[in-house]
């Protein structure tokens, strides 16, 4: 599988950046010519992962969130969202629907369930005290023929 394009984005763990992060990844993924539904799925999955970094990994502190997305020649996108926050003790339990460590703040505990439902594959790596990486993979099935559109060359006016 060949990488066709890559983006890297580092943001501070401020909730105002949630919209920016999901918007940036969605715009990057638009090179794969996804449907509106597929774009929404990517946006939602990224929003969940970034929110987890802000709410759980860094809690009341401000840390950095590292987002890396790669587009491959099989029309798929792989998005890695990494933090250097508190880490997860029990990944299996954290991924159970409706499990939340913070019920008082009206969290639904659905973050990982939504990430799983809206992507093809999710992997979570974590070390307590060091941080967490979430890897989201999604194949764009809709208009699978167009891969990376080449930028149009500007025509000179005669």
């Amino acid at each position, binding site marked *: 599988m060949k990488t066709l394009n890559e983006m890297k984005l580092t943001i501070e763990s401020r*909730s*105002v950046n*949630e*919209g920016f992060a*999901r918007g940036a990844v969605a715009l990057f993924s638009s090179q794969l010519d996804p449907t509106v*539904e597929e774009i*929404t799925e990517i*946006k*939602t999955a990224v*929003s*969940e992962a970034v*929110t987890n970094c*802000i*709410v759980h990994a860094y809690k009341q502190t401000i840390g950095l969130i590292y987002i890396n997305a790669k587009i491959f020649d099989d029309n798929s996108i792989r998005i890695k969202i990494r933090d250097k926050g508190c880490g997860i003790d029990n990944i299996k339990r954290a991924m159970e*629907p*409706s499990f939340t460590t913070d019920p008082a*703040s*009206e*969290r*639904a*505990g*659905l*973050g990982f*369930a*939504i990430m799983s*439902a809206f992507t093809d594959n999710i992997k979570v790596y974590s070390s307590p005290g060091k941080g967490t990486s979430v890897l989201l993979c999604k194949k764009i099935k809709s208009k699978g023929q167009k891969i990376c559109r080449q930028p149009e060359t500007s025509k000179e006016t005669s």
Partner: protein
Amino acid sequence: MPVTTQIKDNSIIAYLSGEIDQHSSKTIRDEIDLCIKSVPNLSSLTLDFKSVTFMDSSGVGLVMGRYRLAEIVGCSLILTNLPPHIKRVMKLSGIEKIAKIN
């Protein structure tokens, strides 16, 4: 404003708009809860999602929280005009078991 509230008789209709995420849900929650407290003998709270362009699980948390409040106050909770994507997120949460979706 991500939410506009309308009070009619003993009912509240909250028109939500824009993107609902963890960032915007705080403002929406405060506005709705303030409105709930201002209406005595509240009979129903309707959340209208017609103008919502994006929602993640923070929206589900918002609905669950308002459901708990509605139970305390003794009013019903109705969700209306849900775009397909929002309906999908709500269904994943099983929220239709506790709130009426129109």
